[in-house]
């Protein structure tokens, strides 16, 4: 049976842990709020971009543009988004599992670009080829941060090194649910021109081809930026839930330890009482 002192020490240790997990829970909660706002704030740009692209696709033969061209038989590049820090539940494991499934489906023909340290570490362990790594988007990603990544992916695609580029990232469904998704970015598939005014009615300045050339690089960066924002929101919500569970577990453990501490204390008192009683009887 553990001594009273040991138990007291353990209770103290678990209390400290609880304090830390609770602090992390609250920090994640406030960062989640900010990440969600950033995600929502970036959506209009993404949506209007889609619309303009659909308008352009209606007047131009976009299939001619190299960013729309399917190169059949080329290798596949996966852009894997995970977090830099751990302690955020099963989030990264789920993303990595999705990646490995894609790799196994088409062995030897899939390369990855990682954004986020956790994904890089896991994929390196699994011996999946990583051609580049980007880190440090931080808790508040800015559009400028993703441009190098977008440029790399676009250049490699244009150079014909890859026939297809997909994003894999944890989509923020709700605070409790983050689901890894595979989203194609290249070749670009324009949405149907159903919203707003049909593309044919627009005047394009200077001309449709120039507008398209200016739009496309940004289009890729916007898709990637949106995924980065979703990843941040997912990270924070997953961390918040994981830390909430940890705090609750610590509380349960403290209750159990306190109970056994009291039992030991009670047993010790009883024993001492018996000793005193029997001692005084012998003397009498």
């Amino acid at each position: 049976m553990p001594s009273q002192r040991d138990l007291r020490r353990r209770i103290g240790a678990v209390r400290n842990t609880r304090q830390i997990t609770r602090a992390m829970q609250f920090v994640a909660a406030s960062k989640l709020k900010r990440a969600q706002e950033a995600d929502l704030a970036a959506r209009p740009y993404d949506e209007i971009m889609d619309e303009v692209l659909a308008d352009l696709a209606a007047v131009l033969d976009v299939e001619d543009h190299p960013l729309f061209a399917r190169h059949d038989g080329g290798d596949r590049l996966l852009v894997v988004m995970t977090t830099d820090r751990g302690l955020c539940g099963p989030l990264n494991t789920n993303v990595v599992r999705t990646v490995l499934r894609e790799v196994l489906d088409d062995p030897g023909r899939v390369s990855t670009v990682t954004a986020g340290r956790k994904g890089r570490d896991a994929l390196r362990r699994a011996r999946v080829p990583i051609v580049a790594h980007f880190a440090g988007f931080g808790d508040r990603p800015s559009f400028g941060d993703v441009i190098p990544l977008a440029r790399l992916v676009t250049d490699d695609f244009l150079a014909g090194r890859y026939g297809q580029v997909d994003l894999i990232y944890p989509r923020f469904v709700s605070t409790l649910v983050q689901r890894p998704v595979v989203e194609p970015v290249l070749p670009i598939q324009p949405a149907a021109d159903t919203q707003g005014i049909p593309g044919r009615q627009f005047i394009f300045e200077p001309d449709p081809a120039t507008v398209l050339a200016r739009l496309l690089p940004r289009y890729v960066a916007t898709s990637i930026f949106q995924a980065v924002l979703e990843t941040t929101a997912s990270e924070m919500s997953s961390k918040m839930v994981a830390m909430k569970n940890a705090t609750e577990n610590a509380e349960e453990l403290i209750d159990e330890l306190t109970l056994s501490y009291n039992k030991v204390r009670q047993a010790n008192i009883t024993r001492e009482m018996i000793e005193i009683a029997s001692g005084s009887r012998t003397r009498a």
Partner: protein
Amino acid sequence: MPIRLEIVTPERLVYRDDVDGVQLPGSEGELGVLPRHAPLISTLGMGELRVRKGDLEDVFAVIGGFVQVRPDKVIVLAETADLASDIDLEKAHEARLDAERALEIGLVEGADLATARAALQAALVRMRIAERRQRREGARRRA
């Protein structure tokens, strides 16, 4: 009849309001948009975006991007858009010096050269707009 103006950047919605008219820095020259304009999609250069609403005028420094004009709505997709009064003149000045230094050293080339040039131009546009605004306000105060 007012026209709805929305200015969005990749990071946020900067402005949304019903206005009487907009002056845009189109890549092919200044572009004035009034309600019931023909549908138009144009690339934007760098410069001043002026919003007219009644007697009031708001000025934004807009850098790159696109505009989609519909008869009832103008949507500006800008790389960055800052209200003239929000521009920090000192920061813009610093950015200008940084960009000039980068170009002087001459280490940048290719795509980076284009980026550095764009940064310099962006800083200059910001400074010009912020300075003009200060002058205008000064004149008004004296009057």
